[in-house]
C-alpha cells in the first residue's frame, strides 16, 4: 500500500464522518458532494479510472443535485403554506 493510498483512505473516512456529523441538510449536501469527490479520487488512486468516472458523476453531481432539488421544493412549499 503506497502512502498516497493511505492518505486517500484516511481522507475518505474523514469525509464520510463529515456527512454523518453535519446536521443541517444543506451542509450535509456539500459534505456528500465532498465525499463523492474523495471516493472517486480514491478509486483513481486504486487504479480503477472507469469506476472513478462513474463515481465522480453519480456520487458528486447527480445524488447531491437530487437532494438539492428536493430541499428547494420543500423550502418553497413551506413558504407558500
Amino acid at each position, binding site marked *: *500500500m503506497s502512502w498516497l493510498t493511505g492518505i486517500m483512505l484516511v481522507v475518505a473516512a474523514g469525509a464520510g464522518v463529515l456527512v454523518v456529523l453535519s446536521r443541517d441538510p444543506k451542509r450535509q449536501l456539500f459534505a456528500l458532494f465532498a465525499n463523492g469527490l474523495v471516493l472517486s479520487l480514491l478509486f483513481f488512486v486504486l487504479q*480503477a*479510472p*472507469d469506476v472513478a*468516472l*462513474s463515481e465522480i*458523476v*453519480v456520487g458528486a*453531481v*447527480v445524488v447531491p*443535485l*437530487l437532494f438539492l*432539488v*428536493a430541499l*428547494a*421544493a420543500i*423550502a*418553497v*412549499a413551506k*413558504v*407558500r*403554506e
Partner: protein
Amino acid sequence: MRARWRAAGLAVSTVALLPAAWSVIVAMPSFGEHVSPYGAAVNAVVPAARHVSNMVAAVNFDLRGLDTLGEESMLLCAVTGTVVLLRGARGEETSGSAIRLPGRAIAQRSDATILICRFAATLLFFFGVYVALHGLVTPGGGFQGGVVIASALLLLYLGEGYAHWRSIVRGRVLSVLEGAGALLFVLVGLIPLAFGKAAFQNILPLGTFRDLYAGGTMVVVNAAVACAVAGGFTLILLEFMEETRAPETETEPGEGG
C-alpha cells in the same frame, strides 16, 4: 427508544459480533493482492479471442452481456418509474421560469458565467463522447461516457437558466435515446438466434486488435449503452429539475398552491 438503550444495544451487538468480524478480517487477502482466477483467465484469453484491450468492457458487453442487459433493464425501469411518478403528480406542460423563494432577490448571471459554462459544457460533452467511443480500448465505456454527457447537459443549466435550458434539452429526444439504446441492446442479443447461433454470440467481424472499432458486437452494445445511459440519466435530471419550475398560473396569495 431512548438514547441510553440504543447505546447499550450497540455495545452488546458489537461485543457479540466482534469475534465473527475479527475472523473475517484476519482471513482477508492482504491489500492489493490479486486473488481472482476469473480475472487472470480473462486477461490471458480475451485479447486474442475478442481483439479488445479493455477487459472490463469485454466482460460487461460480451462475456457477461446477459448480466449487463439485466442492469440495462433495471436502469430503464428506474427511469420510467421516476418519470411516471414525477410527471403524474405534475403534468407535462412547461413554464417560463423556475420557482424562487418569495422575497429572495435573484442575481443576474454574469456574462463570464454563461461563457465559461458554454465552453466547459461543450468540452465535457465531447469528453463524454470520447470516453464512450474509446470504451473498448481504454478504461471507460458506454456507462461512463453516458453519465459524463448527462453531467455536461446539466452544466448548461448553470449558464443558461431554466427556460433556455428547457428549450435546449428536450425530454422527448432523451426518452427516444433511452428506449432506442435498450432496444438496440436487446436486438444484439436476439439477432444471433436468427442465424442459429447462441444469444449474445459475437457474430460481427472482430477487427484488428486495439483498433477503435475492434470487438464485433461489443462496439454496437457499447454505443447502445452510451445512448441509453446518457438519455436515461439526463431524463432523470430533467424530471427532477422540473420539480423546481414555477407553476404556469401563479396562484393568488392566500389561495394556496
